[in-house]
């Protein structure tokens, strides 16, 4: 045993060299620090209502906020941990239907139904996650797609519980004794949620845990060779991502007052992936921008609604072909080139 101890002393000997002064500075400029980003976002969210002049504007802002939060959760999984999901809408729908069913059919208080549904979705993700996350690349895409479709089919077919394809109504959310009815009330609630998830995500990324997750995107062998428990890390981010998506799904249901199985369908999953890809894999700020663009696009396109599928398809192709790192990175690259 004594020999080992000697060796550990030796170990600390060779890691204690002189400190490089240059290194001390690279802890990050203040604008790169997580807390700065959070503060800037908080400020923007607080000021945004100045630009929102109608109830419809608030309505759009709420939708963007919900989608942005979901997109951030999906980006944690796809962008940071490098695990594709083509079934994320399934978790959104689980949260939405869970909240609706528990509160309206079983009389649970709405906030309890909301939190329980998110926890339930997280539990499901935790249970199915381990086997599914063993898959890689295309197979993972297909596996998550299958998972999403199964959720969709259950929701569509269990009419007695979910109302089937006709959908079901959702009760009004009461918080702190007041009823949240108008989009303006909802704006502040969703803004707080977005800020919380944004804060949590940036904290995660700028920490050992986040670095370990990012390592999953690199060569398979690396993570294991530095002692990262790969299956556990994947499962953690999958569960977290599902929990956030389900929670926001619950809020979406409560806000909309009515839900239908299309929440869980394949195209909704694609739409969510599109938000992440347009914003850029691995960019939390990008996800907010991507969610805003994809949410607002149909509003611009309403005049020509029949073009929606075509335009979405073209955007998908265009983004992947011409700006595979997302809109934000592409614009930053362009800006740098112009400055030079």
């Amino acid at each position, binding site marked *: 045993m004594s020999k080992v101890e000697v060796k550990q002393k030796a170990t600390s000997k*060779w*890691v204690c*060299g002189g400190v490089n002064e240059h290194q001390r500075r690279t802890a990050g400029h203040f604008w790169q620090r997580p807390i700065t980003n959070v503060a800037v976002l908080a400020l923007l969210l607080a000021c945004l209502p100045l630009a929102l002049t109608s109830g419809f504007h608030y309505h759009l802002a709420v939708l963007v906020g919900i989608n942005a939060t979901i997109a951030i959760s999906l980006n944690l999984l796809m962008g940071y941990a490098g695990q594709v999901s083509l079934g994320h809408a399934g978790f959104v729908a689980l949260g939405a239907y869970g909240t609706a069913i528990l509160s309206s059919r079983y009389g649970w208080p709405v906030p309890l139904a909301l939190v329980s549904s998110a926890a339930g979705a997280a539990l499901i993700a935790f249970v199915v996650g381990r086997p599914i996350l063993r898959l890689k690349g295309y197979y993972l895409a297909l596996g998550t797609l299958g998972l999403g479709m199964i959720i969709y089919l259950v929701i569509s077919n269990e009419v007695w519980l979910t109302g089937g394809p006709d959908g079901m109504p959702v009760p009004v959310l009461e918080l702190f004794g007041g009823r949240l009815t108008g989009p303006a009330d909802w704006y502040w609630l969703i803004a707080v949620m977005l800020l919380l998830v944004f804060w949590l995500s940036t904290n995660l990324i700028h920490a*050992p*845990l986040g670095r370990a997750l990012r390592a999953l995107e690199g*060569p398979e062998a690396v993570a*294991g060779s530095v002692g990262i*428990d790969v299956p556990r890390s994947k499962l953690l981010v999958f569960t977290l991502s599902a929990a956030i998506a389900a929670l926001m799904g619950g809020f979406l249901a409560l806000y909309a007052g009515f839900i239908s199985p299309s929440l869980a369908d394949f195209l909704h999953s694609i739409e969510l992936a599109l938000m992440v890809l347009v914003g850029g894999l691995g960019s939390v700020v990008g996800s907010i921008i991507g969610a805003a663009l994809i949410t607002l696009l149909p509003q611009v396109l309403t005049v020509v609604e029949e073009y929606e599928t075509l335009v979405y398809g073209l955007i998908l192709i265009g983004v992947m072909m011409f700006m595979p790192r997302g809109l934000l990175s592409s614009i930053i690259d362009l800006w740098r080139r112009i400055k030079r």
Partner: protein
Amino acid sequence: MSALEVISLSKEFGGVHAIEDLSFNISPGSVHSIIGPNGAGKTTLLNLITGIYQPTQGEVRLFGDSMAGMPVHARVMAGLGRTFQTPQVCMHMTALENVMLGRHIHLDGRFLPTALRLPRILSGEREARHRAAELMEYVGLADYLNDEPGSMPYGALKRLEVARALACEPKLLLLDEPAAGLGASEKADLTGLIEKLSGAGLTIVLVEHDMKLVMSISQHILVINYGQKLAEGQPTEVRRNPDVVAAYLGSAV
């Protein structure tokens, strides 16, 4: 106590014995080499030691502890560090971040403290950055701290891997063909680095093709062929062993 004990280890792939009833001991300290002709089973042996494969029979012990059934990451926590034949680095991280990755097992990676960004997370990050920078300097990469691995020369990537492995604070370091693909001067630098590490008391196991390098820095050599032990001993003994000469017929031993 042995640093590494391999006890009647066997690995079969569909009836083919890649490793067959192999046993050897590696004592703590100094540089040990595992050599053998192509297809001798070196890679399989390495995968068995690091836990990428589970053996069909037998077991691996690290500093007296059985590694049976232990996954890759758990062996790192037990003190096993490694590098790869072709450098495996995360291209989307800076060189420094790649080395910081090596600090993983010494940092708090739990979810709640991270989510709340407790002070211990911040101080852990500072410490990791500090150590990683020191290690990069130690292996001679002080100029590459914030470079992207994609723009670094091949030899530098190999040293980056060594720095990352050292960041884990291993008790035993496995180097998988560290000299492969390096030029003469880079090889000399590498030899210097290995000797420096060995001099600091680290146990080093080298799996290498370059005979000159192996003969010059190893204190102990294990030769395997067809998944079995062919010879074992000091470089001078191994060099004279007729079986070894036969197995390497044509190559300069």
